[in-house]
């Protein structure tokens, strides 16, 4: 079976590395971006099966990335999981209004749970 490609847009390199290594061992192909601008570019060129997106990012924040990815014909249907440590009502509402598939608070979720969520969205058993 072909490996599903995921794009991680995360500026914290420790978190990015831990998440990507875990997901690689779970059989995914991983692409990473460290800021919002690079993230949008990679979303357009790589056309990943799913994007894991941080909110607080340099150059362009997660909300802007979300808006641009949703506005582009070629990427508008890609599921986007917001991974952040913000978690107030206004953050969640804004993310869902802009078209995020779901919203996970990093400090509350294990890598195993993030992976389970990704698999659930991509319908992988």
């Amino acid at each position, binding site marked *: 079976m072909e490996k599903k490609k995921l794009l991680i847009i995360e500026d*914290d390199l*420790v*978190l990015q590395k*831990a*998440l990507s*290594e*875990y997901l690689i*061992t779970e059989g995914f192909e991983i692409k990473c971006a460290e800021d919002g601008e690079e993230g949008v570019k990679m979303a357009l060129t790589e056309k990943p099966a799913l994007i894991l997106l941080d909110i607080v990012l340099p150059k362009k924040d997660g909300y802007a990335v979300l808006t641009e990815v949703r506005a582009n014909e070629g990427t508008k249907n890609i599921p986007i999981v917001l991974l952040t*440590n*913000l*978690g*107030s*009502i*206004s*953050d*969640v*509402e804004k993310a869902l209004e802009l078209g995020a598939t779901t*919203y996970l*608070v*990093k*400090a*509350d979720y*294990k*890598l*195993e749970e993030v992976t389970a969520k990704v698999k659930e969205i991509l319908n992988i058993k």
Partner: protein
Amino acid sequence: MFNLKQRVYDEFNLKKQADELGVSVWQTPSFLFIIMGLVIIAAMTGIYVVSAHYDSPEVVVISESLVVILLFTIGNSIIRTVEEVAKANKMKTEFVSIASHQLKTPISEMKWQIELLLIKFSTGLSVRQTEIMNEIARSSEKMGRLVNDLLDVARIDQGQLALDKKNVNFCDLANDSVESQKIFAKARNIELVTSCNVDKLMVFADKRRLSVVLDNLISNAIKYIDGKGKVEIFVENVDGFAQVCVRDDGVGIPKNEQDNIAEKFFRSNNSIKNRTDGTGLGLYIAKNIIEQSGGKLWFKSIENVGSEFYFSVPLAIEKETVVA
């Protein structure tokens, strides 16, 4: 319960008010209102005396003006105090919120790296090394929970606590909570008994946060038993609500503290207070989560006999099932 005597007592307990608001006694609104009342009485008497003894309208006008200036000054002090307190509270809440967010990043880094090491790269680690890593994992979990509690309190104070409501089987949730607490109960020689008279009880609520409430009540029940004891958990359907009762035969809550136990940072002065750790935030958060979920939380307790903590959440209705 509305307690008039207590309300009057609180109104005149200026020292307590000053401590709560973080201002001097003379700055408390109650003190300033009392002074204002006395000034009004004195002024009315004074003006009566002045007008009875002097026919000159100028004297009456000057005395009335002086009273108005005095009242205006006191009123201004009250407004300034209230503004200062509100500002300090806002700054405190914002500080806790920012500090907690900043703390969450290193906590996430620790948690994810430990998990990666233990689950994916544990080959070559000795038994002792794995044991130490597990200890570190538990400590980081504990730190994460503390930060979450502080952040939740800040969000509750700002009216920003987000609930991710979905249809959840309440019985499964209660069973999972009991399972997760069994190890702590066993370690303390406490029997944990569950009784659920239904298999399925669908509620429309935030699964994670409801688990926090259940874990909190069960772990409190376990913590506050001195020696051997029993904790019973009853789940039932009561008039369109899923209702839980967590009963223990522990030290109970002293009667004079029962009105305060859901307050922020409040810890009861019971016999084993110093032997149990806690921040006094758990019940405050639990009560707010339940109330925001459309339910209520209450308790009955007798000192040295035990406590019964109850909460209820509304059952899911058809329309919400479609939305979820």
